[in-house]
């Protein structure tokens, strides 16, 4: 192992020329598993795969041992749609890599038996990986031609799912850390900032602030020490991009952090990781540890005189900590409450020192920019927003997962073509972009291009890249209530507009989806007035809240009201939920034909609204019914109907 380390250090990392020696390339090809003389089985191992059962699929190992097959088994990150998890790739010597989906424990044996006897068939086969000069499997489609892979531009995610994220050697063999070495050996701090500034890279956390400019601000503040913080908090309740990146390609993030820290002259960098992601934590710690082992972090890195230490911190669980100043408070060991800006962290941040806070995706771009130059980066995307953007597509999309597209792609292409529209043939009602503080976008407006300026002009935000496809079976009002409840729970309580506003908004939304106590027109009017007040509360919160959390909290509501006003009105006046999800508004009736009189519903009804004689059809007294739905859930004969 030490030989390999020495080889990689001398012949790759410290090799002066950009093109490596041919004999070095040959060794690297082997490490990259491009030329193998034995079969290789790749198995996905991210959190999403583990949820889908990949730990059990690990029985591949026992199979290979029992059948004494000389085969390499590699755990890789995720690059496929979540519905394909757990996936498995098999590469036979000299042949293209085959891609199989949904390989659960019981499928392992028949599948591998087939492959080792060259019998490739079955519905689990997705296709073969693109042509790299290997033998082509006849009659098997190329996965690079599937919309999911073909329409994405994978730059940030290029390495995801291709290599073992726990081995730094594989990352170095893929060109890793050479950008960092180049930076510390040949460029000054200022030059690195200028390169990044020229590339036009903008912060991927939603604001779109030019990264190079931010770095320069910190660099130009005279001080004894500066800090770099990688914000991997990923607050959005429906987003998982950062975690997928950390689990699939942690080394590039470490390299990005190292370059960024060098650019601002920081000797300590923090990674602020979200809780509940033990696998990401393990892989990140491993990546930092092996980088230290290679001398890429620590004291006097490769005799350049530059020192850097990366400290991994796990966020203790508060949504608001994703906000810059609150994040700083948490790192300082206080309650994570936001502070007034300015001063901005770039001039006075952690411990009062200049601090740059970048998110994971931004930092993932940095090594590529250093390696390929700013012009290369500018060649992708649009004039004002070069590069790509990663989204975590979820909700009812047919193919959910982490998707990377070039800036300038339309939202329609993202949800319609790549994610394949909506599951089970339902209609797309809206997409929700930007997480709990994002906006609803109707299908008519999906022609919008992904570009920081265009999105901002429309008054929208990309947020951290959460992208939820909403189908017509989902009630918008309830979804808005869900976001509001989330924000209410996570409001830190420092400023009044947010603390009180979120609570009141939730109360009003609750009254909209609940059955009123009495049916006179007065209550309807009150509720209508409530919704009117919602709008004014929302405006006040937007104008007066201290931090982004409160300012953006009303966004889902305001955009839903704008686009789906009739649905709110239906809830208020007709007390109807067209998607039939709002429990409080449902009324039930019993199908006389189907009811067997088993009394199950009547005995469970909490308000005794169901009457009848045993073995005769029962009936529901509508005035008494609260719409709780217990009878609906309990009936074994589907005799209870929602009106």
């Amino acid at each position, binding site marked *: 192992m030490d030989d390999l380390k020495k080889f990689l250090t001398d012949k790759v990392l410290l090799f002066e020329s950009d093109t490596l020696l041919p004999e070095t390339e040959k060794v690297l090809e082997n490490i990259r598993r491009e030329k193998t003389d034995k079969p290789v089985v790749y198995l996905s191992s*991210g*959190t*999403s795969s*583990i*949820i*889908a*059962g990949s730990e059990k699929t690990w029985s591949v190992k026992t199979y290979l041992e029992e059948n004494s097959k000389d085969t390499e088994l590699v755990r890789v990150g995720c690059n496929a*749609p*979540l*519905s394909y*998890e757990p996936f498995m790739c098999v590469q036979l010597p000299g042949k293209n890599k085959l891609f199989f989906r949904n390989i659960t424990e019981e499928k392992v044996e028949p599948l591998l038996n087939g492959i080792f006897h060259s019998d490739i068939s079955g519905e689990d086969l997705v296709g073969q990986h693109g042509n790299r000069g290997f033998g082509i499997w006849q009659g098997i489609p190329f996965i690079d031609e599937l919309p999911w892979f073909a329409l994405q531009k994978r730059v940030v995610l290029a390495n995801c799912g291709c290599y073992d994220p726990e081995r730094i050697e594989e990352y170095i063999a893929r060109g890793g850390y050479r950008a960092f070495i180049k930076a510390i050996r040949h460029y000054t701090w200022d030059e690195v900032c200028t390169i990044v500034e020229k590339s036009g890279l903008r912060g991927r956390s939603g604001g779109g602030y030019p990264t190079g400019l931010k770095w320069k601000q910190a660099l130009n503040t005279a001080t004894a020490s500066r800090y770099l913080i990688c914000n991997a908090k990923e607050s*959005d*309740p*429906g*987003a*998982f991009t950062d*975690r*997928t990146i950390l689990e699939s390609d942690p080394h590039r993030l470490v390299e990005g952090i190292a370059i960024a820290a060098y650019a601002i002259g920081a000797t300590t960098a923090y990674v602020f990781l979200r*809780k*509940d992601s033990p696998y990401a934590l393990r892989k990140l710690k491993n990546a930092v540890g092996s980088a230290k082992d290679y001398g890429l972090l620590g004291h006097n890195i490769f005799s350049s005189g530059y020192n850097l230490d990366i400290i991994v*911190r*796990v966020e*203790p*669980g*508060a949504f608001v900590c994703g906000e810059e100043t609150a994040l700083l408070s*948490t*790192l*300082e*060991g*206080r*309650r*994570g409450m936001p502070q007034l800006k300015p001063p901005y962290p770039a001039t006075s941040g952690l*411990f009062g020192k200049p601090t740059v806070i970048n998110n994971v995706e931004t930092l993932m771009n940095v090594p590529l920019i250093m390696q390929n130059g700013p012009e290369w980066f500018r060649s992708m995307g649009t004039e004002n927003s070069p590069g790509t953007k990663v989204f975590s597509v*979820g*909700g*009812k999309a047919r193919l*959910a*997962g982490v998707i990377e597209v070039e800036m300038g792609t339309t939202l329609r292409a993202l949800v319609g073509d790549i994610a394949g529209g909506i599951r089970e043939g339902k209609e797309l009602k809206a997409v*929700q972009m930007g*997480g709990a503080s994002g906006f609803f976008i109707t299908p008519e407006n999906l022609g919008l291009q992904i570009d920081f300026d265009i999105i901002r002009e429309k008054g929208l935000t990309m947020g951290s890249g*959460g992208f*939820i496809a*909403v189908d017509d079976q*989902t009630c918008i009002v309830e*979804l808005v209530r*869900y976001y509001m409840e989330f924000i209410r729970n996570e409001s*830190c309580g420092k400023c009044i507009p947010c603390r009180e506003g979120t609570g009141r908004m939730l109360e009003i939304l609750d009254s909209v989806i609940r059955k009123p106590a009495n049916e006179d027109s007065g209550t309807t009017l009150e509720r209508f007035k409530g919704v009117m007040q919602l709008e004014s509360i929302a405006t006040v919160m937007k104008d007066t809240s201290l931090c982004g959390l409160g300012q953006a909290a009303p966004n889902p509501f305001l955009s839903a009201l704008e686009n789906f006003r009739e649905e709110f009105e239906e809830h208020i006046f007709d007390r109807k939920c067209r998607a039939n999800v709002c429990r409080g508004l449902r009324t039930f009736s019993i199908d006389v034909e189907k009811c067997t009189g088993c009394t199950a519903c009547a005995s469970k009804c909490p308000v005794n609204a169901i009457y009848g004689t045993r073995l005769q059809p029962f009936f529901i007294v509508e005035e008494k019914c609260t719409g709780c739905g217990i009878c609906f*859930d309990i009936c074994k004969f589907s005799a209870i109907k929602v009106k």
Partner: protein
Amino acid sequence: MSKDIDLILKKYKPGRREELIPLLQEIQDTNGHLSVEAIVKVGLFAGLSTTKIYGVATFYDQFRFIPSGKVSLKICNGTSCFMSGSKALINGIREETGLEEGQTGRDGIFSYEITTCMGGCHHGPVVSVNGEYLTTVKPEQIPDLLKKLKFIIEND
């Protein structure tokens, strides 16, 4: 127990406020919760009053001050799981166990918490039982599931 805390404290330097949260996290990882004893010890060690430490710890969701149940459930309430019906699931668990989020029953068997996206968006709603994942859980499965888990714990 108190020995464990002493061992952990030895790894840290006193007087460094920024290490307070990692310290509390490590104690919680070892003991499962932050006991009064632990908070007092940390206070003496860090030179902070216990109220300050409680002030910090109660702000964050991660810290709990009572032991968690033998069966610790985590229910994903990310947007995708919510759309697949995690709310009914949470209500079902609440009714069945009679507990609120973060509480532990008197028998010490169950406790549950609600988390944001776990990453199983296509397989929602996702529930994690002591770290093992169950996918596409339906509310009607909850009573049987809890009975089964209780049976396993009681006969263990």
